[in-house]
């Protein structure tokens, strides 16, 4: 029983990371109806930037903020110069562009930083596990950070004028322009946010899985499964789906299939969701009367 509880708690910790990436995916999907296949690689690349800064002697939290800022800018520029021009092209073209970005980030990272596994520092210390050995300090700290990020994002969209305008631009670009919202700028902002969230997730997961250019492939797969499980149109669903996926991953790893089929587990969940409940847990159809 203690074992199960252990698995659940540590599942929630990694689940928070899946939740953030899933949220970033859902944000992009709502705004552009595209799936960002490069989301993971952008996060991985950002994590290398953080490592570079830390190794250059920059204190952790300053490096953290700098990395988020750099990723944010990078995301905005990518939207402006690569994806915006393809916004009216067929699916194949936008998917092609995303895969192109994936290849570029993956290979440039390997070229600059090498393909070997690199340890990544945690700011939460390596001391004794907390709560009677239930959860490591890093897991606890990363859960708090991801939770803070999710709450901040929620508050931003819920309570600020720009957040409201971003939601409006995602749901109804035509009407948004008619109330004076610069839709293209909102999309770029959304991309910036998604890249920033990805960077934080990367920095939180790297101490656990070690940093290498392919670090995010598994995380991205779990985030995809999380987004679909929660409902690809629901930000809340992405968060719930992320936490669920973290728990499922740990329980399945410990008691069902072992860790060697982690990725296949995610694939199976994706297929099962698509077969039995394509709208996910929270992605409900909108009630509307005309």
């Amino acid at each position, binding site marked *: 029983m203690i074992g199960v509880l252990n698995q659940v708690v540590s599942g929630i910790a990694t689940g928070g990371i899946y939740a953030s990436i899933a949220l970033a995916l859902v944000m992009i999907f709502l705004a552009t109806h595209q799936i960002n296949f490069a989301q993971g690689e952008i996060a991985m690349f950002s994590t290398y930037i953080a490592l570079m800064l830390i190794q250059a002697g920059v204190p952790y939290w300053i490096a953290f903020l700098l990395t988020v800022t750099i990723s944010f800018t990078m995301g905005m520029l990518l939207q402006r110069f690569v994806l915006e021009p393809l916004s009216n092209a067929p699916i194949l073209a936008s998917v092609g562009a995303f895969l192109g970005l994936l290849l570029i980030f993956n290979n440039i990272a390997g070229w600059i930083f090498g393909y070997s596994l690199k340890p990544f520092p945690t700011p939460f210390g390596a001391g004794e596990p907390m709560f009677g050995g239930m959860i490591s300090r890093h897991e606890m700290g990363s859960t708090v950070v991801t939770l803070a990020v999710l709450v901040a994002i929620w508050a931003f969209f819920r309570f600020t004028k720009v957040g409201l305008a971003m939601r*409006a631009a995602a749901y109804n670009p035509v009407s948004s322009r008619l109330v004076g919202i610069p839709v293209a700028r909102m999309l770029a902002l959304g991309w910036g946010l998604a890249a920033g969230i990805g960077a934080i997730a990367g920095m939180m997961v790297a101490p656990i899985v070690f940093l290498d250019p392919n670090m995010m492939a598994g995380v991205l797969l779990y985030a995809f499964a999380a987004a679909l499980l929660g409902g690809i149109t629901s930000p809340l669903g992405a968060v719930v789906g992320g936490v669920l996926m973290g728990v499922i991953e740990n329980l399945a790893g410990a008691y069902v299939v072992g860790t060697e089929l982690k990725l296949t587990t995610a694939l199976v969940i994706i297929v099962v969701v698509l077969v039995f409940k394509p709208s996910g847990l929270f992605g409900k159809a909108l009630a509307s009367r005309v």
Partner: protein
Amino acid sequence: MPMLLEVKALHGAYGESKVLHGLDFVVEEGGVTTLLGANGAGKTTTLRAISGMLKTQGEILFAGKPIQGMKTEDITALGIAHVPDGRGTFMELTVEENLRLGSYTRNDKAAIAVDMARMFELFPRLKERLTQQAGTLSGGEQQMLAIARAMLLNPKLLLLDEPSFGLAPLIVREIFDILGRIVREARMSILVVEQNASLALSIADRAYLLETGRIMMSGTAADIAKDESLRRSYLGY
């Protein structure tokens, strides 16, 4: 009277198919102007052209300044509020959020609050449904929401695209009564496009008759309403 909007030799097309063939018309400051015409005459397209939603040739002057080729959001920011066909409701957002979006371009918080209160006075139904998802409103309520949203921009010019479309006569009456009050009280010009000519003429000062992308006739609303033959052949009432 000074001209708020001047449209000269306006041509417009959706891709290959041309819709507007050289329109000339003006909207006077402080008045209600109406564009009448049958389905497909180019009424909606004219409004879209003014808001920069399609490529056009010719000239569009707003308060003497050319606005052609500007982005839609920048034209809106100049003070042109557009209630589009289909009402443009943000279905997924609440009624309150829809209204807040109306004042997106403004920063005068106190004045926005005053205007918001005024809208609740004009449309008490919206106040009752403030926290409801806008997609669940009835057609009439969505039309009210669209007008209120546009008014919250505090516009100099209000473009209305078929406010009566698809609504029950009673609701249409209610909406046009409110529009009448707005016209009398607010210092604002309105360009309204309508298929229901008698309704539009009842609140308009000046009218243009549009047929297949050209202006067929223009005059004061009163003169046009009086013209028996015109009424029968073009306006159908």
